[in-house]
């Protein structure tokens, strides 16, 4: 084949493709190959995907177009947590009522001695009552946000309930800070008395003598039950504080899903801790004779102390004796 004939063949091949090629391209409509909602969701990972794009406004977060997972959180918050919170409170109150009907008020078996012994000094009582009063308001206003619409709204009507909840929100946001401050105080004051030890095992084995009259397992300043309350409040309170701060400052929390996670954890801890604290309030007031004085005047009856905190009484007596000996012994 000559050079010329090769060139002709080559040119004709190029021309043939050159004529066909534009026709093939012309059949593709560029606007057809656009993003498609269903395909996009599948590509991004199904229903839990988040479709987002670009916006021309400064709020970059507005670029999130569709996040179907928010509905899952809505169902959890609106229904599951609502039911759970109601049952946490009702369940504990019912349990305590049954306990009261069976066991009655726990009396001081050996009767009141009339002599008192200092159990909590003023700073311990101040920390306790700051924590207690803020917790109660926080618990009630928090509970109102979850179950108020089905419990309080029907009684007060929408307008009054809205006003009440608005003040409740403000109270919740601001009282969180003294709550956290007193939580730190409680830790500093009492952590040394709340380290679990062998004495607690005996106490737990005998169920603290709560179920049977006349049973009084030994205990130091705090028995195993009180240690449980302490750690529940400290750990639960710390969890509430952390998640609460994240909810107060959503920009710190991160994405929406992170905030939703913090909200669920916050509500779950709150429900559990509220139930525990209801039991704590019960045993510290109507449930046990002589118990309230510990946090009321700070002075408890000696017989009460001997029954519930035998080792602690011995420690206090020993310290007192040592102190008096030191004072009465004249200097040589």
């Amino acid at each position, binding site marked *: 084949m000559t050079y010329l004939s090769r060139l002709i063949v080559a040119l004709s091949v190029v021309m043939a493709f050159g004529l066909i090629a534009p026709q093939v391209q012309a059949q593709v409509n560029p606007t057809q190959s656009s993003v498609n*909602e269903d395909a996009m969701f599948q590509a991004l990972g199904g229903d839990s995907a988040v479709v987002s794009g670009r916006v021309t406004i400064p709020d970059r977060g507005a670029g999130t177009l569709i996040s179907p997972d928010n509905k899952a959180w809505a169902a959890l918050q609106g229904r599951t947590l609502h039911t759970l919170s109601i049952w946490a409170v009702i369940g504990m109150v019912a349990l305590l009522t049954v306990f009261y009907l069976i066991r009655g008020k726990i009396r001081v078996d050996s009767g009141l001695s009339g002599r008192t012994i200092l159990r909590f000094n003023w700073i311990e009582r101040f920390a306790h009552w700051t924590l207690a009063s803020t917790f109660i308001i926080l618990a009630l206003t928090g509970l109102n946000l979850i179950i108020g619409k089905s419990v309080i709204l029907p009684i007060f009507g929408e307008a009054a309930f809205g006003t009440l909840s608005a003040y409740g929100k403000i109270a919740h946001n601001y009282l969180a800070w003294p709550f956290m401050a007193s939580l730190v105080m409680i830790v500093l004051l009492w952590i040394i008395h709340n380290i679990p030890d062998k004495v607690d095992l005996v106490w737990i084995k005998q169920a603290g003598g709560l179920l049977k009259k006349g049973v009084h397992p030994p205990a130091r300043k705090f028995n195993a039950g009180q240690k449980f309350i302490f750690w529940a409040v400290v750990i639960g309170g710390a969890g509430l504080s952390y998640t609460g701060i994240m909810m107060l400052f959503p920009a710190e929390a991160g994405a929406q899903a992170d905030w939703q996670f913090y909200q669920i954890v916050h509500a779950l801890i709150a429900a559990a801790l509220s139930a525990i604290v209801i039991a704590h309030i019960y045993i510290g007031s109507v449930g046990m004779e002589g118990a309230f004085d510990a946090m009321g005047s700070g002075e408890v009856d000696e017989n009460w102390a001997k029954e519930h905190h035998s080792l602690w009484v011995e420690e206090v007596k020993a310290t007192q004796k040592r102190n008096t000996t030191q004072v009465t012994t004249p200097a040589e």
Partner: protein
Amino acid sequence: MARMKFLCDADRCIECQACVTACKNEHEVPWGINRRRVVTINDGLPGERSVSMACMHCTDAPCAEVCPVACFYTTDDGVVLHNKDTCIGCGYCSYACPFGAPQYPQTANFGTRGKMDKCTYCSGGPEPDMSQAEYVKYGANRLAEGKLPLCAEMCSTKALLAGDGDIIADIYRERVVTRGYGSGAWGWRTAYGDTVTV
């Protein structure tokens, strides 16, 4: 009664932002609040699409589910509205909404949220229709005047459709059949449980 819905035909939207501007102007929406916005997906890539998005007025609205003070209500037209007198500005609805509709004015220090504001489907709030009190809180009530939302009414390419869900779905379906393609009724599956199938 009609079941009012929005449908944005992304194959027609030219991202002109006129719907956003119309909404802000019609309702005197405060600075920083966007009841409607246009989001561009795959921006700068071949086949990018823009979607105009506002409150979709969901069936079983998740915002209403989480609202601690139950300030949401659904009208006979299927429009999801809320009562600003009851709203406590907790922000829960913004975390429940799949479309980022709820907006909040900053009212006090530390970015404290004010009462929530969102698209009303141009149908005001619980106050008497077309009253001054209603206009101040929620903006114009075009539905009460027998008109559709302004964003859709003045859309230059008729990309944004508003009206009875069945009717606008039919319009969209016809368009898809005629031109041979469609990127879908964005948000419908999430808001109403079912998308527009052709």
